[in-house]
């Protein structure tokens, strides 16, 4: 078993996961207890244990366990306190991908909102890059700044309180950004400012809007302001629940499903063979409760079954589309800044003589910036 990995210390943020689907961010405090609906956990016991460990409640003893996970931007999106609508995994992933967020780039974002996207962007630009994020609501800006700091991202992210729709992005950033992302009520008002903030080569913009009317105005502005390759898309993820279902294989036993008492007896027999929470018949499925066979429910039903003759049922592990499709319903817009920069004479001469040695260039990057503690993504 791999032994590496961080150890939990006092004051760390951990993600406490309680099966089947309860997740909470907890700041470890050795002097107190963590309580959830399953019991009370003594946080003193958590210290010195590795992230990813299992802890059991002090009260009631033997109650369901808790798993202590290290924070990642994805888990943060799940556990953060919603101050606003937030972006979820599919949209966040597409923004990171199509905005070409990568180590070394400078990105601008507005509004910061609850910082759901910001965490993923900060991870993507590290090391060497920077995220400037703007929020006009003072408390939200302060709150986000505090969170970035407690997650060790203060070197990578700068939060500024500013009304972007009115003032635009600051002049100091003009021509500096590789990418701009807007999640604002009227993004079209900021398209011009975003255009001047972007580098003249390789600049990309992305916006998120819940309504198509917003998208239309934004896209029109983008085309008028010198953006090209405009793409509008939506991306959502749907979860598939996995469970073990008992299917009836003996089609003669019992019988008379539609006949009063007899039918009732047959059904009772069938129900008895089911383990609560573990299996599911044709009827009475509870859609909101993912039947999480192992993590959630107790019960080994082998003993109770007592079906000596032919087996009348067969277990099968199956999947079913879940009810929660994640992703706030909205549209993503991506576009590229039209490149007006002329051909570069020297580059042509230099490169036709000797193709540049890209591998060597990369090599020098690696050597130049040796992994250092502060350059690392803390999440």
């Amino acid at each position, binding site marked *: 078993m*791999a*032994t*590496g*990995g961080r150890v939990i210390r006092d004051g760390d943020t951990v993600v406490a*996961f309680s*099966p089947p689907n309860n997740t909470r961010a907890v700041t470890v405090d050795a002097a107190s207890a963590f309580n959830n609906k399953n019991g009370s956990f003594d946080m003193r016991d958590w210290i010195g244990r*590795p*992230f*990813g*460990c299992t802890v059991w409640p002090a009260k009631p*003893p033997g*109650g369901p366990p808790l798993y202590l*996970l*290290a924070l*990642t931007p994805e888990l943060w999106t799940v556990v953060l306190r919603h101050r606003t609508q937030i972006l979820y995994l*599919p949209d966040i*992933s597409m923004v*990171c*991908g199509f905005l*070409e967020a990568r*180590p*070394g780039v400078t990105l601008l974002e507005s509004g910061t909102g609850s910082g759901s996207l910001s965490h*993923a962007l900060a991870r993507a630009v590290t*090391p060497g890059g920077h995220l400037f994020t703007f929020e006009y609501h003072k408390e939200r800006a302060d709150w986000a700044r505090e969170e970035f700091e407690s997650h060790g991202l203060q070197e990578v992210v700068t939060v500024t309180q500013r009304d972007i729709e009115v003032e635009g992005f600051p002049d100091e950033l003009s021509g*500096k950004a*590789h990418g701009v992302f807007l999640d604002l009520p009227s993004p079209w008002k900021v398209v011009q400012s975003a255009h001047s903030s972007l580098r003249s*080569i*390789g600049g990309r913009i992305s916006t998120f809007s819940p309504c*198509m009317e917003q*998208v*239309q105005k934004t*896209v029109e502005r983008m*085309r008028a302001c*010198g953006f*090209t*390759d405009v793409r*509008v*898309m*939506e991306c*959502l993820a*749907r979860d598939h629940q*996995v469970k*073990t279902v008992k299917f009836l294989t003996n089609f003669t036993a019992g019988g008379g499903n539609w006949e009063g008492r007899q039918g009732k007896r047959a059904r009772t027999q069938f129900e008895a063979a089911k383990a609560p929470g573990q299996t599911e018949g044709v009827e009475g499925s509870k859609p909101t409760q993912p039947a*999480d066979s*192992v993590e959630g429910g107790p*019960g*080994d039903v082998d003993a109770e079954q007592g079906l000596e003759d032919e087996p009348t049922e067969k277990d099968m*592990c199956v*999947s079913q589309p879940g009810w929660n499709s994640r992703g706030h319903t909205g549209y993503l817009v991506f576009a590229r800044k*039209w*490149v007006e920069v002329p051909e*570069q*004479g020297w*580059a042509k001469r230099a490169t*036709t003589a000797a193709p540049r040695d890209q*591998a060597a260039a*990369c090599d020098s*990057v690696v050597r130049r910036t040796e992994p250092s503690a502060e*350059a690392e993504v803390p*999440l």
Partner: protein
Amino acid sequence: MDSQRGAVVGDPDYIAEGDKVVLVVNNEKHYFETLKAGRKVKLGNKTAILDVVFGHPYGSVFQLSSEGADPTRVYKAMNTGQSAAVTEGRSNKDLVDDNSAQQLTAQDIQLMKDSGKEGPEIIDALVANSSTFQERTEFSQDKYKKKKAKKYCPYFTVLRPTAMNVCEGVFQYAAGQLGYLRPDILAIMLCMGNVAAHKKVLVVDTCLGLLIGAVSEKMGGFGDICVADCGGRRQKPDALKKMQPRHQNIYAAKLSDLKAAQEGVDVKCAGTQSDQPPGSSQGAEAGPSSAEAGAVERWREEIMPDNEGEIPMEDRVEDTQCSTATESDRFGSQPEQLLEGSQRRPRSQQLVAGMQHADSAQINGWAEDGFDSCLVAAPLHHTSSLMQQLMPLLKPSAPFAASSPYLHALVECRDDLLRGRMAAMVEVQESFWREYQVLPERTHPQMDSKGPGAYLLSGVKIIFSDPPPGSAPNGARAHRGGKGGRGKRQRR
């Protein structure tokens, strides 16, 4: 110069000879090219020598107007589709679509071309000779002109070969060989795996090396990528080879070596930092044809004497509907057949650019520390069995993600991981992705369907431990319920 400021090291601003690029024709079709002076390149229905692109910035657009002529850079922003939305009074109700409207014949057009007429002139002629053009709505006129423009004066954009660009392009031609790893799923996977600079990432990739390239791009040259060789057939790193090498830190290692190192066996693996000729590294214990042969032999590329051993993507038979998928018929045979002619020729082999053998110190180090993250795109490796092998190699709390075109493979894997109490928050999901055309009063979902995408399994590794002794037996027993379940499963 403004554009030089803030350039990301390793990502050039200007196009140069030797660069690997993505050429997107008419904003639709992706072509991949390693730029070489004087080389003729086929783009759509035209061929051209692309030397004029050298020295221009990435993202520049070029027009291919007439056959044989150099492409010309387009400086004025091309934003079509701004024409007025609806024209009252005109409609298409009288249009008869029997191809009789166009008075010009194919021969006439050919004559125009031969006499050196350029694309725009041909389009004007087509419009002038269409008996119905004036009766069309403006919307329809616009559409007509655009359609003709695509054919007679195509344009192309030169883009850097980012993972998303390469993924999107290769997916058009060879979705099956990519394991249906669509750009949206690739993007979600990289996030779920928490891939970032300075991490140690374990990758299993039998999907043309796309995942390796994408991980490398996200890490920007910092940290380690360990490509685990988990058996199976030789890999064709066709997607990886289309990307620019970013990274000197891609190491290949046999899964068996990683496992052995973890069990405390002192691994004397074949890996050396130098690139040995194939076969020689393995010594006597494994024959060259054995499945166990050379740790990274599978990632050697075959260098043909003339061309770069690359099968042009467009020559590939599109791999779409296959009901019976086996390694040979599905993921390999078609390119293999295409290769056959050239295979008789002598060839040398070398490791894919940027990849090297892991040495035993590294392998032992990884085995001891564990990986920060694990990503798997190996549709024909039994997902559950593979994950059972990989999980112990990860640090506790490490996130992981595996993609597969087969929902069942992931469903079973999730069940097994949960029953074995190896992971938490294990989810199987599916991604839905749709594009829209947005134009004044003409907004609608895009026609081109994205094609089926892979499913995605993700989760976080945990270390399960029993409740402390002395705690009430009730709850504890309840929690063993799952193990009873496992016994049942094994009988299945």
